[in-house]
């Protein structure tokens, strides 16, 4: 009996503390609270990328709050509602509905193209603007929804940029292409394939794997027999790492090239020496070449105690694009914000941010990186917006 009453007392005390916390927060706000949604894979094999985006957006929200933004003459406070889509398309739509039901003004997300595309219907139906920090599949902005935006170059820009580098700088004659059967991987690989073919480069093999496989011996052996100068892989680091190891052990001389999905420290971590010389394109300028680059990297490190992985600057810029649109609109109504978002123009951390009529980033620059001495080193920047290949 005594034990039970002390338990009751404890829970009552806990309830008081929790209630107290809530009250304190509400008191300090003063103005309206504006909810901004965020969705990315916060758990799972891509959690390192998702957490990075979440931290980037959180940093943006915290800075806006510190600046004390006024919208329509009223002081407002932003609040981030972060949701985990587990890189799973089905989960992504559930999470999107949850954000829509919570009446967020806008959403920064998702990361995977395979998640952003199905989720975009939910946001479009609810009239909520969606800015993806990392989805590069062209289809995302080509579905006819007015609510889709992205702050990265898409694969119709990224794939050709990689191809341009392969043709002009590496002077390749024969290439093999592998994709991981995801929206992202297939989109990137086929954009690359189209561009090299158009330039008269021979595509000797087109192979497919999945985003869960770690055995590529059979397809690599087939590729080896055709002796290409370069292997292009549309996929992410968790497959790229073991693939590089197997390329080395099967004795292929061709280098591996990929997109932003393999341009991570994790790839080098997984592949070790075998990563040396691997080439990857990544939307945006090199982290330290971004207009707000080094300052951002320092701020990020100070706030979270970790280095920027990849997409944090894009998440950060997405938040500022939204704030800019809200200020212009003088409102936090999704419809009015949406109208202004189309006209937004400002200098973000990643470079000038402005959207074209489909919601794609205008003139998104693309940087080619190569692994040298176990580190990704930028070697060339290609302006992706200059010469995008026509989409299918």
């Amino acid at each position, binding site marked *: 009996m005594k034990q039970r009453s002390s338990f009751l007392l404890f829970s009552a005390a806990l309830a008081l503390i929790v209630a107290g916390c809530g009250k304190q927060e509400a008191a300090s706000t003063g103005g309206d609270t504006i909810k901004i949604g965020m969705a990315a894979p916060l758990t799972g094999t891509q*959690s390192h990328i998702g957490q990075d985006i979440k931290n980037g957006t959180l940093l943006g929200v915290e800075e806006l709050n510190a600046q004390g933004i006024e919208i329509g003459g009223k002081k407002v406070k932003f609040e981030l509602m972060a949701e985990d889509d587990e890189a799973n398309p089905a989960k992504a739509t559930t999470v999107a509905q949850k954000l829509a039901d919570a009446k967020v003004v806008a959403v920064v997300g998702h990361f995977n193209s395979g998640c952003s595309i199905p989720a975009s219907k939910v946001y479009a139906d609810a009239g909520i603007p969606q800015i993806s920090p990392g989805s590069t599949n062209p289809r995302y902005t080509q579905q006819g929804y007015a609510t889709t935006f992205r702050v990265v170059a898409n694969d119709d820009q990224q794939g050709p940029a990689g191809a341009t580098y392969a043709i002009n700088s590496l002077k390749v004659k024969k290439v093999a292409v592998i994709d991981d059967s995801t929206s992202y991987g297939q989109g990137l690989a086929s954009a690359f394939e189209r561009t090299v073919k158009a330039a008269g480069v021979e595509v000797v093999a087109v192979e*497919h794997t999945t985003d*869960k496989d770690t055995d590529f011996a059979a397809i690599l052996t*087939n590729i*080896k027999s055709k002796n290409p100068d370069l292997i292009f892989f549309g996929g992410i680091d968790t497959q790229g790492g*073991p693939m590089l190891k197997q390329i080395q052990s099967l*004795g292929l001389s061709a280098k591996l090239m990929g997109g932003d999905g393999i341009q991570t420290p994790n790839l080098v971590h997984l592949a070790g020496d075998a990563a040396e010389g691997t080439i990857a394109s990544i939307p945006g300028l090199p982290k330290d070449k971004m207009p707000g680059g080094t300052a951002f990297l320092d701020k990020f490190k100070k706030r979270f105690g970790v280095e920027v992985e990849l997409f944090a600057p894009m998440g950060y810029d997405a938040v500022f694009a939204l704030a800019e649109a809200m200020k212009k609109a003088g409102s936090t109504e999704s419809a009015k914000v949406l109208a202004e978002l189309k006209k937004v123009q400002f200098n973000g951390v990643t470079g000038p941010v402005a959207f074209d009529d489909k919601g794609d980033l205008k003139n998104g620059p693309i940087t080619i990186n190569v692994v040298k001495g176990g580190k990704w080193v930028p070697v060339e920047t290609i302006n992706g917006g200059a010469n995008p290949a026509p989409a299918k």
Partner: protein
Amino acid sequence: METLLQQLINGIVLGSVYALVALGYTMVYGILGLINFAHGEVVMVGAMVTLAVIKLLAGSGLPLAVQLLIALGVAIPACMALGATIERVAYRPLRNAPRLAPLITAIGVSIVLQYLVVLIWGRGYHPYPELLPTTPIDIAGARISPAQIIIVVFSALMMGALLWLVHHTRLGRAMRATAENPAVARLMGVNVNHVITMTFVIGSGLGAIAGILVSVNYSVAHYQMGFMLGLKAFTAAVLGGIGNLAGAMVGGLLLGLIEALGSGYVGDLTGGVFGSNYRDVFAFIVLIVVLIFRPSGLLGERVAERA
């Protein structure tokens, strides 16, 4: 020619991995008529425990071979204990329940184990140290690494050792008796519970070694690695005739070869209509065809369905 040889090597290595894991499925099925879906996860735990031990020993300055022996000395007993615990906690209480119940429990155990590993080691892909020499050797233009040779030789040895165990030891005789009729075996003085526990212990010990070999070969380990591997190994066991030790080996090798040759040549033979993405499709088509003509698998014996 070189390419064909390389694809055959790829297939045999992959097939030996399947065979090694399939032995664990087939042993349990042979005795209990139970498909232990958690076996793939035991394989994964074996890889993870070894990785953890190696990481602990990393700064010790011991030679790699000694480190590997210590890691094996921890991982194998750990997996054996895990196997015995799974049997005691999840399967024994359901031994006389309808067959569907232990099957569902097995899937449950498999999920529990995956997420236990997530809690301890996280969801990331872990790079696996080169515990065995992986510098490839050239054979007529094709390449095979010592680690891969060890995988092939080890699977064959293990199958041989298990066959010997089952046919030439006291425990083996007790196993065969239990497989035939547990009730009669018990009347003859066989400690059936002990026999079943030993089956799980041996199978799980093998699983631990399989996990290490697979991870060394692909130089990566993650919490979901056991799932697909388990499914393929189960397919291999069914293909060869589940419950039959030699069948697990035959089924594993066959499946590995079909996958390697399938994804290697299908694209070229069909002029790009079917690509390497049809790899699993071909493997399962072969399984279906075999099951239509030989429902008990290639080497399986026709046995009356147990009640």
